[in-house]
C-alpha cells in the first residue's frame, strides 16, 4: 500500500500526516512533494487538496493543515483501530471515542472524507512509530490504508528520517531477504527483531565486537547499551569524531556522503538517487575503508572450515 512521492504529487487529494512534523523535520515535503504542488489532475494545487494533521500537540506543521486532530498521547493505536472499525460501519461508543481526545463528529467527518477522496495518502512519522506500541502503531496505519482500498485508492508511507536509512533497508532485503535485525551466525541470514536488533543485543550484552558506520549510538542509545559498547571492541567510521568514536577502540575518519563521497542514496519512497559530491575530501570514503577491512578479513582463516558445511540446507533452524 505504498507509492512514490511523485504519485502523491500528481494525484493525492487527501493527505494525512500522522505523528510527524514535516515543517521542521522534512521542510520541503509540503512544497516539493505533497500539498503545495499543482498537477494535471489537481490543477489548483493546494486548493484541490485536503490536509489533515494528527499529532499530540499543535506543531508548526499543524498550522498548515486544513484539519488538525489532537490525539491524546499514547492513544494513536486506539484511534487508528477505531477508524478501522468505523470505516466498516461498526458501532463504537462515544465514551470510547472520547478516550482518544477526539469527538465522534470529528471522526465521522474524517471517515467520510477518507472514503470520498480520490486518492488518499498517510504519511507517518516518529511520533507514531517510536511511541508506545512502536511497530504495531505503524502496522495499524498500514492496515487501515490497505482496508481503505475497498472504498478508494489509499496508500501509506513512513516519513523516514536520517539520510539513507531506506537504502540500508532495501539492500538488506535483496541481499538477505530481511530488512534489519539479522544474524549470519549459522552461515545464512536469519531474522528476528527484538532478538537481533541492536538495542536489545547491546542491552543484553549479546555481541563481543561492534562495527558502527553512519550512526552515533554513543549519543542516541540508552545508557546500558552504551556501556556495553564501551566494554567490547568497537570500531567506528564517521566524517566526525563522534561520541561513539570516543568510546571506540578504533575510529577512522571518512568522507561525508553527498558532500565529498559519491554514490547512491535511496529516497524515503525507495527511489535511488545519484549523489553529486561538490568537494574533494582529504579522507577516504566509507566504501573504500569498508572494502579494505573486508579484504583484510578475507586474508584471515575463514570461520567456517571449508567443506565442513553443506552448501545448501533445506531445513533451517
Amino acid at each position, binding site marked *: 500500500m505504498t507509492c512514490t512521492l*511523485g504519485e502523491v504529487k500528481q494525484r493525492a487529494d487527501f493527505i494525512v500526516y500522522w505523528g510527524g512534523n514535516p515543517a521542521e523535520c522534512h521542510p520541503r515535503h509540503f512544497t516539493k512533494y505533497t500539498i503545495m504542488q499543482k498537477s494535471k489532475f489537481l490543477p489548483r494545487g493546494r486548493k484541490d487538496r485536503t490536509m489533515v494533521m494528527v499529532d499530540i500537540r499543535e506543531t508548526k506543521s499543524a498550522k498548515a493543515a486544513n484539519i488538525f486532530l489532537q490525539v491524546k498521547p499514547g492513544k494513536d493505536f486506539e484511534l487508528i483501530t477505531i477508524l478501522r472499525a468505523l470505516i466498516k460501519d461498526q458501532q463504537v461508543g462515544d465514551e470510547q471515542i472520547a478516550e482518544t481526545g477526539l469527538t465522534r463528529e470529528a471522526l465521522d467527518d474524517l471517515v467520510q472524507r477518507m472514503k470520498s477522496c480520490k486518492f488518499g495518502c498517510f504519511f507517518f512519522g516518529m511520533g507514531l512509530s517510536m511511541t508506545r506500541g512502536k511497530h504495531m502503531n505503524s502496522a495499524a496505519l498500514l492496515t487501515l490504508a*490497505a482496508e481503505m482500498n475497498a472504498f478508494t485508492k489509499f496508500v501509506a508511507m513512513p516519513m523516514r528520517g536520517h539520510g539513507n536509512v531506506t537504502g540500508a533497508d532495501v539492500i538488506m532485503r535483496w541481499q538477505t531477504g530481511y530488512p534489519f535485525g539479522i544474524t549470519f551466525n549459522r552461515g545464512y541470514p536469519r531474522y528476528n527483531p527484538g532478538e537481533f536488533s541492536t538495542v536489545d543485543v547491546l542491552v543484553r550484552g549479546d555481541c563481543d565486537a561492534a562495527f558502527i558506520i553512519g550512526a552515533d549510538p554513543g549519543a542516541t542509545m540508552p545508557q546500558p547499551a552504551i556501556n556495553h559498547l564501551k566494554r567490547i571492541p568497537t570500531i567506528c567510521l564517521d566524517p566526525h569524531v563522534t561520541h561513539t568514536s570516543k568510546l571506540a577502540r578504533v575510529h577512522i575518519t571518512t568522507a561525508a556522503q553527498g558532500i565529498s563521497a559519491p554514490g547512491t542514496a535511496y529516497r524515503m519512497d525507495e527511489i535511488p538517487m545519484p549523489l553529486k559530491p561538490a568537494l574533494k575530501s582529504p579522507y577516504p570514503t566509507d566504501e573504500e575503508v569498508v572494502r579494505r577491512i573486508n579484504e583484510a578479513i578475507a586474508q584471515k582463516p575463514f570461520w567456517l572450515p571449508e567443506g565442513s558445511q553443506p552448501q545448501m540446507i533445506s531445513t533451517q533452524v
Partner: protein
Amino acid sequence: MLRITGGKIYDPANGIDGQVKDLCVDDTGTIVSSVDGGRTIDASGMIIFPGGVDVHTHVAGGAINFARAMTPEDHRRTQAFIRTQSRRSGLGGMAPTTFATGYLYAGMGFTTVNEAAVPVLSARHTHEELADIPIVDKATLTLMANNEIMLDQMEAGEYERAKNVVAWYIWAAKSYGVKAVNPGGVAAWKWGSDAKQLTDPIDGYNSLTPGKIVTMLATICDDLGLPHPMHLHCNNLGAPGNISTTIDTLKHLEGHRAHIAHSQYHAYGGDDWDTMCSATVQLAEYFNTHPNITTDAGAVLFGDTVTITADGPWQHLLYKLTGRKWGNLDVENETGCGIVPYTYRPSNLVNAVQWASGLELMLLIRNPWQVFLSTDHPNGGCFWRYPEIIQLLMCADFRSECIKTLPDRIKSKITLPEIDREYTLYEVATSMSAGPARALGLTRKGNLGIGCDADIVIYEEEDDVARMFSHPRYVIKGGEVVIEDGDIRETPEGREFLVKPSCAPETDEFMRPLFEDCYTMSFENYPVEFERIENPNMQECVNASEK
C-alpha cells in the same frame, strides 16, 4: 578451454535432435569448431541442451524486493545457501534473495533471464539488484503502456513523438525492450478503477482506448527495430471470460510481431468464478494460425507462492478473495504493482482450471517455437519448479495421475484429459531455450552453433524427468563450469543486454517540461548512467523494413 565429448546434443536452433557430437569452447567462452588442450568432459550417454532462457520472470526490482519484505515466514522455511570463503549466503523460496536467484537458476541449467517489469523510475534499483544476481545473463523490459507522457502523445495522435518517448525511456532505463501491462488499466487503477474493454476510452482520456495503445506500441517496437517485440500483458488478467478480451487484443496486433506474456492467465471462459473454465482451445487455435506472435505459458503449480504483478486491479481482487496480506506499490507516472501471498490448491476449482490451462496451452499450441516454459515467476509458481512442468509435459501418464487428484467437477471445464501429446526432448529444448532466445532476439543464446555463447547444460539421462531436469550433471556458463554434480563451483558475474534505439535529439527538450510536471526527480538525474551497468552488452536494433 573446454571439450565436451560423446554427448547426445539437442540443439533446435541448428536442427540437431539427439545426434552425438563433440562441443568445443574457447577461452572467450564461445563455441568453436576445435580447441587445443584444456579440460575434457566425457559426456558419453548424457544429454546436452543449450542453457535455459527464461523469457518472463520477476527476479529484481522494487516489486520483488517488496515481496521479500512481506514474506519473512517463507524465508525461514525455505532452502538456505551457506556462506563459503568466496560465495555469499542466500535464501531461496518464493522470492529468493539475489545471490540465491543466481544459484537456483544456474542449478537447474538456466543461464539467461529476462526481468519482465521495470518501472523507469526504479530502473536504477533494478540494475543494482541484477548486478547482485550471479552467473546468469540478464535483460530487462521497461514498463510503458501506462506511461502518461506517452499516452498523452498517443491521445494527441502524435505517433512520432510517442515513438521518440518510448526510445528515450528505453535508453534512460538502460533496458532491452518494452513491456506493456494491462494497457490503460493501471493508469485507471490509480484512481481505484480498471480498464476492461479494449474499445472503451480510458478514464481521463477522450479517445484513447486500450486497443489503440496495443496497436501503436507494437508498431513503435517494430519501427524502433527492437530485438524483442512488444511484450504484452493483456487486459483483464485472471478474470473469468477474459478470452474475449485476449482474442480482441490479438486482433489489434495483426501484422505485428508480439510476445504475449503468461497467456494462461488470459485464457478463461465462463461468466463468473463458478462457471469459469478453460478457453485454451480457442487461444491455441489463434496462435496456431498466427506465427508472428509468441507466448509463454505462465503455468500454475499447486503450492505456495507470492503473486506480484504490475496489475494492481487483479491483485486487489485476489486480496479480497483470499483475505491475505496485501501490498500495493505505485510508481509515479508509470505503473503500479501489487503483492499478495497465495496458495494454489488442487481442491480449488479455479486453481485447478488455472493449472490445467497452462499445460493445455503448452500442449495445444503445436509449434514449440511459439510457446515457452514459464510460471511468470513468482506468480504461478517459483521458477525453480520448472522441472515439475517439464515432467507434466513429457509424461502423459503422470499427467493423468495428477488430474485424478482434482475435483470431479473439473472435467467439464478443461481439455487436458483429452490431450495425449508428450513433449520430446527436442521440443523441451525448444521451449526452454532455443525458442525464448529467438523471441528475445538473443542470437548467441539458446544455440550451440559455432560462434554462440558456450552456455551448456549436461544431464544424465534418467527416467525421473523432474529429477533429471532439476539436477544437471554439469552447467557451463560462458565456457566456465559453474555447476558440477550438484555443487556450485564458480559464481561469475553475468552480463546485461541493452539496446539504444534511435531517438530524435530534440526529445530531451520535449521531455524536460513534461517530466518536471509529473516527476519528483531532476530530469538530469533520472536516466540510469551507463557506467552503472555491470558488464553491459549492447545489442543492435534493426528496423523491420531494413531486414
